[in-house]
């Protein structure tokens, strides 16, 4: 019986983690679909979003959930800046050069966070929340809000991708770049929108991650591997697959703590990823990588 309760409890954590991973993985997947490279600075973009959100709260004294929109603005602007200052100039060469560049950019962004906010650990809210008890199952209020926020963000993105001209153009470009070109879809504009959305999603993941635990300069980097694992599992380049990938990886990471040290959680994500690469590299939903 105890095992069952543990399992349910961990599954709740898993869904919460999964929803955070999903936001990150959708961004990685979208950026890959359109720019054809694995964006290694995505984790640190999450960190930027989380810290910008924190600063907004500190300066304005606004309620905690304001960290989300504020962080989104911060990360979207950062992503645009990085793209215009750096990535834009190397896009014409091989995509793999962008990969190196983004790896360097990851370290730069993290160092900027350290420079601006210092190496300290922060949290959005002081104190520990009292959980709601349902029998033997405890649910932390924050977890409910995290899940809700993630669902809303994904739903908003879904509407954008299926209802707006620009959203459809993004899907078209990620489907077939050459055809998008001859159709007259303006690639540069779509790329800018992709960075804005990617940044916003990253900030979403970062702020929610900060709500779930705490803010550290390496918070985003530490979660990058599970985010990539989720994106690959869902089929990289397939934003909707990222939802399934995120949930599976999140659940597996949390449930693994029944048997493994919690610090091995990222390794669990890695092992699943390797298994996927061996068995079905295109992921569940036939990615385009």
């Amino acid at each position, binding site marked *: 019986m105890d095992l069952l309760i543990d399992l349910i409890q961990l599954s709740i954590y898993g869904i919460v983690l999964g929803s955070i991973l999903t936001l990150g993985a959708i961004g990685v997947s979208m950026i890959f679909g359109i720019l054809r490279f694995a964006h290694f600075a995505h984790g640190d973009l999450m960190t930027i979003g989380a810290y910008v959100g924190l600063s907004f709260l500190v300066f304005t004294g606004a309620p905690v959930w304001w960290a989300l929109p504020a962080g989104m603005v911060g990360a979207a602007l950062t992503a645009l800046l990085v793209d215009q200052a750096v990535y834009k100039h190397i896009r014409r060469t091989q995509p793999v050069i962008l990969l190196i560049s983004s790896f360097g950019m990851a370290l730069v962004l993290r160092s900027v966070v350290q420079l601006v906010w210092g190496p300290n650990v922060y949290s959005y809210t002081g104190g520990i929340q009292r959980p709601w008890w349902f029998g033997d199952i405890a649910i932390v209020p924050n977890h409910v809000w995290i899940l809700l926020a993630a669902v809303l963000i994904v739903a908003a993105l879904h509407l954008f991708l299926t209802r707006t*001209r620009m959203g*459809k*153009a993004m*899907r*078209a470009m990620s*489907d*077939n770049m*050459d*055809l*998008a*070109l*001859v*159709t*007259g*879809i*303006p690639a540069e504009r779509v790329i800018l929108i992709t960075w804005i959305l990617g940044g916003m999603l990253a900030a979403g993941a970062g702020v929610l991650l900060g709500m779930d635990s705490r803010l550290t300069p390496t918070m985003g980097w530490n979660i990058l591997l599970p985010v990539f694992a989720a994106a690959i599992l869902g089929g990289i380049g397939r934003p909707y697959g990222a939802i399934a990938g995120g949930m599976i990886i999140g659940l597996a990471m949390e449930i693994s703590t029944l048997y493994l040290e919690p610090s091995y959680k990222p390794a669990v994500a890695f092992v699943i990823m390797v298994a996927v690469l061996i068995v079905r590299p295109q992921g569940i939903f036939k990615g385009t990588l």
Partner: protein
Amino acid sequence: MSLLLVADIYGGYGGADILKGASVRVERDEIVVIVGPNGAGKSTVMKAVFGLLRIRKGQVRYKDEDITNARPEQMVKRGVAYVPQEKNVFPSLTVQENLEMGAFLLSGDLRPRLEKVYAVFPKLRDRRRQQAGLMSGGERQMVAMGRALMIDPELLMLDEPTAGLSPLLIDETFGRIREIQALGIGVLMVEQNAKQALAIADRGYVLATGANRHEDTGPNLLANREVAEMFLGG
């Protein structure tokens, strides 16, 4: 004034020239066909006209304006639409979304344009919510042509619109192309089904190793013994 005038162009994919003096002319509401053996450079001519590879020498004029090496986006804005030989639909988009993408550069209400395309391809209306990637080859070709028609083009460029289709569908496709012509649209197409294509064509070109070999009206080319033996399979 010709709609499109391609005069003696040279160019390739970065290496040696693939096109070595290819020329094409399309008048308003004409169907013009380019035929020739595999690898002759037919697709390359289309891509060169549409700005997808660099023309090193020679000229492309559209309605008397020099558009040599214009970017694809500018071609679309001028009213030229192009359907590539393969991978010519967005597979994860629905039929209607594919069509909408055709008109991305245009603002305003798309409904009248959609209606026009649905009038040429009634089947697409019934299947407008279906994912294009899940459709048959013939249906995809219709989606691709429909997408191109969304900008109300004056010139439609089709690269092998009947490749891989059943004889019945080939007939139907050529029928549609004549309907498109009847709308006042010039059509430049590359075709492997040369006999049938030349039969509906106003004029045709035979291209080999990147240069023009023959140029005549459709019927005359069909009647030409040399052309028939060398390029039309006897």
